[in-house]
């Protein structure tokens, strides 16, 4: 799951926290932030695995979350009863389990078969319905808290305290809760502490009666809840890992491992394991060092049948390794004792990058299709270069593409073709199988795919195989079919690179095509001039509305600050995990660096006398940072510096903008505008700007927007230093 979004909410809370001084009784307000961030993570994770999620799902959930929280806070403002604040915690507590169980029940309510994909329309509708009550209640809490505090001016302080709570909630999740506590237990915990909070505030014993609701739900459902989305299929294991929810489904003597509702592999599945190993191994004349990234233990067992020197198995998620090795049937247990097997828990990309000398004869990628930016890192030209360096001279990189039968449709052609073309741009020799096998093989020396040669080689090595047979070579490498695939995929010219990760957007297209949706396809038609035209059209009214008008310029600046800081953050984290690999704690550290920057930025600008002027300089700095940051992508340390600067600039902008308005009441408005900006900044770059135009152009767009915003600020301070007229 994209942790960019996990931390996203924490970010804007913390920004607010840093701008406001605190002299208030803090506990209930800190608690709101703490509880709501954990609830949000819970809901996001549950929805993500219900829909076997991709990047788009997260965007959908967050959109609704924001809208509902906004609506909730509008509604809460009308309730002018002080004690209502205490009961809002009870309300949340009561709503947690129905929401969680509602999400778990979505699949059966929609009568979706186990493993059936969910159409986009149903994802939108069911998300909109299930999270509504809980989000409204969460949104109500903020205005209720202000009323409870008794002084309207406390709003800012309460924002701040919430942020602190959210920050700690996030920390707690990252380092303690994830991979230890499952979502049902976490829900119970959250329900109970919300009632405790209500008790603490209202000091009425009667409230403790409400403890009974979550407890009843928990005892009735905690055992059945994991299997609810599976329609009564046998869920033999359900584990929470940092990377999502792992479920093991048992059908007969066969177990299937799912991560976030997405089928990773089935074990034992000898037919699949054999074909995915014996076919590529036979392509190599003398395989002895094999690197396997991801996949089932069944494949490792097949590989160990060969007289290889070493098999290195790399998997990022320790829980997946634990779970899959716990499933080993007796006859496969021996692989655990085999000294040739070397298991490494690390991001595969990072591992490949680190291997400095050519060591491998084969690199087998057993990864899902690139439906997220994170998996896409294994399908870029940059990764293929790294793989090339890790391979010996005649080494072969092996990957799988989505399969077809008889005909490769246009969306699959685009999705597979962009990968095929990217591989070809790096390796001098690329071979494919017929479309039913979905194999892609790349090397710097010719790969012999003549069936007779392979048949003989396989017969010589004679590994024991039940379902794989040497005749398969004739089928997989039948010249007519191979030529068809090469011709069809060769028509695509797109390249998938780290800085322009296009394949995942094509993969999303393929996914929407399944439900006949063609809307996303229009995205592909977007050209740079469309974006420029669109931005110009948006900016012309802004020019008329905000030119020489201080308040409006500031509001516009705040929206663009939210947008640009989030865009930068998304770009930097995407680039970082592409170049240096994905490390859970490291991404946490990057985020923390940004936050330290935020704090520093606000601290430095706290006492400024000319906030508007400083704001202008900071706007200009954003432009410079956006344009130049790409020059620093080649050093790991630079990323921390970039994020630190970005944080400082953002914090400074936020603080100076608030100060420049000169009014405390505008805090709420700024809060909202910043929210809109950050949200679009998280969504638009990751589904449009970056995949279609690349990170560099995305940053140029940011620079363009910020230049305009800087001009607006400039117009209201320097050019016309007359007293401003605030029309608002």
């Amino acid at each position: 799951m994209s942790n960019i979004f996990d931390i996203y909410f924490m970010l804007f809370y913390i920004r607010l926290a840093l701008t406001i001084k605190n002299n208030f009784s803090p506990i209930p307000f800190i608690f709101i932030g703490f509880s709501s961030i954990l609830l949000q993570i819970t809901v996001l994770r549950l929805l993500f695995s219900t829909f076997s999620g991709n990047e788009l799902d997260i965007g959908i959930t967050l959109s609704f979350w924001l809208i509902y929280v906004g609506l909730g806070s509008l509604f809460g403002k009308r309730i002018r009863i002080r004690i209502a604040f205490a009961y809002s915690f009870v309300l949340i507590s009561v709503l947690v389990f129905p929401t969680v169980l509602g999400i778990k029940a979505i699949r059966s309510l929609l009568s979706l078969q186990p493993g059936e994909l969910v159409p986009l329309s149903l994802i939108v509708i069911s998300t909109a319905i299930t999270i509504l009550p809980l989000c409204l209640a969460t949104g109500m809490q903020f205005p209720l808290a202000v009323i409870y505090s008794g002084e309207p001016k406390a709003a800012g302080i309460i924002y701040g305290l919430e942020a602190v709570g959210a920050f700690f909630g996030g920390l707690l999740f990252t380092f303690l809760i994830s991979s230890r506590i499952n979502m049902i237990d976490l829900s119970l915990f959250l329900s109970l502490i919300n009632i405790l909070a209500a008790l603490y505030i209202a000091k009425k014993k009667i409230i403790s009666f409400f403890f009974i609701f979550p407890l009843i739900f928990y005892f009735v459902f905690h055992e059945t809840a994991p299997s609810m989305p599976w329609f009564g299929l046998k869920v033999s294991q359900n584990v929470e890992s940092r990377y999502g929810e792992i479920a093991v489904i048992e059908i007969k003597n066969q177990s299937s491992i799912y991560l976030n509702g997405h089928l990773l592999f089935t074990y034992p599945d000898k037919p699949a394991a054999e074909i995915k190993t014996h076919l590529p191994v036979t392509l190599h004349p003398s395989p002895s060092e094999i690197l396997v990234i991801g996949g089932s233990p069944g494949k490792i067992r097949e590989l160990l049948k060969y007289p290889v020197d070493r098999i290195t198995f790399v998997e990022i998620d320790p829980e997946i390794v634990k779970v899959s090795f716990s499933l080993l049937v007796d006859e496969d247990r021996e692989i655990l004792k085999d000294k040739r097997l070397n298991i490494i828990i690390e991001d595969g990309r990072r591992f490949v990058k680190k291997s400095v000398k050519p060591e491998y004869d084969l690199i087998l990628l057993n990864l899902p299709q690139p439906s997220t930016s994170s998996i896409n890192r294994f399908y870029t030209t940059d990764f293929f270069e790294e793989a090339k360096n890790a391979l010996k001279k005649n080494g072969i990189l092996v990957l799988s593409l989505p399969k077809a039968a008889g005909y490769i449709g246009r969306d699959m052609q685009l999705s597979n073709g962009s990968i095929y073309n990217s591989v070809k741009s790096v390796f001098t020799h690329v071979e494919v199988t017929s479309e039913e096998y979905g194999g892609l093989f790349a090397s710097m020396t010719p790969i012999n795919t003549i069936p007779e040669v392979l048949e003989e080689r396989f017969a010589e090595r004679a590994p024991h195989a039940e379902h794989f047979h040497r005749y398969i070579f004739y089928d997989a490498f039948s010249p007519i079919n191979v030529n068809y695939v090469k011709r069809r995929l060769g028509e695509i010219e797109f390249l998938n690179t780290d800085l322009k990760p296009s394949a995942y957007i094509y993969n999303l297209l393929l996914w929407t095509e399944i439900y006949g949706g063609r809307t996303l396809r229009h995205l592909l038609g977007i050209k740079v001039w469309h974006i420029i035209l669109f931005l110009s059209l948006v900016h012309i009214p802004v020019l008329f509305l905000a030119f020489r008008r201080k308040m409006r310029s500031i509001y516009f600046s705040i929206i663009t600050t939210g947008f640009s800081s989030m865009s930068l953050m998304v770009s930097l984290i995407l680039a970082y995990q592409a170049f240096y690999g994905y490390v859970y704690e490291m991404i946490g550290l990057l985020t923390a660096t940004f936050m330290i920057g935020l704090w520093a930025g606000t601290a430095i600008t706290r006492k400024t006398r000319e906030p508007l002027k400083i704001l202008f300089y900071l706007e200009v700095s954003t432009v410079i940072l956006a344009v130049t940051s790409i020059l620093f992508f080649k050093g790991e340390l630079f990323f921390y510096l970039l994020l630190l600067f970005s944080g400082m600039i953002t914090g400074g902008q936020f603080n100076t903008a608030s100060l420049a308005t000169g009014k405390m009441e505008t805090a709420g408005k700024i809060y909202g505008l910043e929210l809109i900006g950050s949200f679009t900044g998280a969504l638009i770059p990751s589904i449009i700007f970056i995949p279609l135009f690349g990170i560099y152009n995305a940053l140029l767009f940011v620079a363009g927007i910020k230049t305009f915003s800087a001009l607006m600020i400039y117009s209201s301070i320097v050019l016309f230093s007359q007293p401003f007229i605030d029309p608002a």
Partner: protein
Amino acid sequence: MSKRVQCELCPNSCVLDLNEVSRCRARMNKDGTLYSLVYGKPCAVHVDPIEKKPFSHFLPGTTAFSIATAGCVLSCKFCQNWQISQAKPEDTDTYDLPPEKVVTHAISHTCRSISYTYTEPTVFYEYMYDTAVIARRKKIRNTMHSCGYMNKKPLSKLTEYMDAANIDLKGFSEDFYAKMCNGSLKPVLDSLVLLKEKNVWLEITNLVIPTLNDDMKKIREMCRWIVKNLGRNVPVHFSRFLPHYKLTNLPPTPVETLTEARATAMEAGLKFIYIGNIRHKGESTYCPECKKILIERIGYFIKRNNISNGRCKFCSASVPGIWS
């Protein structure tokens, strides 16, 4: 005068207003006349082993010139060919291949038969029919793999030229057809009976999908129906489900389920039962009398063939099928 038309080809019986396209996406009402949008425009053209269709009792070891156009009368959630079957003809890249050319190509590729396959040949009925007529004249056999969702009249007409049909019997309940395919079972059963009556060589494919149609009670019921209505000699292929289309997150069928289905079918009295989509000894043909291996298959390849003149080499039992 109303310019609405009703298509009488399949049980969907689409009633189309002017310029409306049928559910199968391959037919359109243009000015009151029903037109095929796919005639002579296949998007999939391959030379395949006949075993791939799958046919186990029809000219083993030969190749079939295989064609398909876009469109399908059903919409099964597990379709492996969804990229053409669920596509609109205009969204696919096609070849220009009129019936005569199909036959010429088949001959030049030394194919013994033409196969109307991959998607649902019903949707390109006219194209299939015209090609079949020419092929028959040129001594090329005609085969189809179909879901059997065709009305009686067009199907009867087609049987005059169709030598063999492999029909998908996707499940054995109306509920399954309604939920998973948006269709119904009855017309399929009727087609099976009709094809048998008309002496078209018939084989049946049943894709066994975990949790959806893998109940052995239902499989037994289906096999008994086949024995009773079509006879013991109809070959039945139990095919392994692999995650596809809308069911990409459903696990593949356990091998155990397939062998159980095979045993169940044997118990029910069927003589020729195959396991498909997987390399397994159940791909081979065994003599129902002496139990010896008649045709040893590995995938689409024939390792040995012990049938001569339609009889078992070992015990001379007659083996139903088209062997020459």
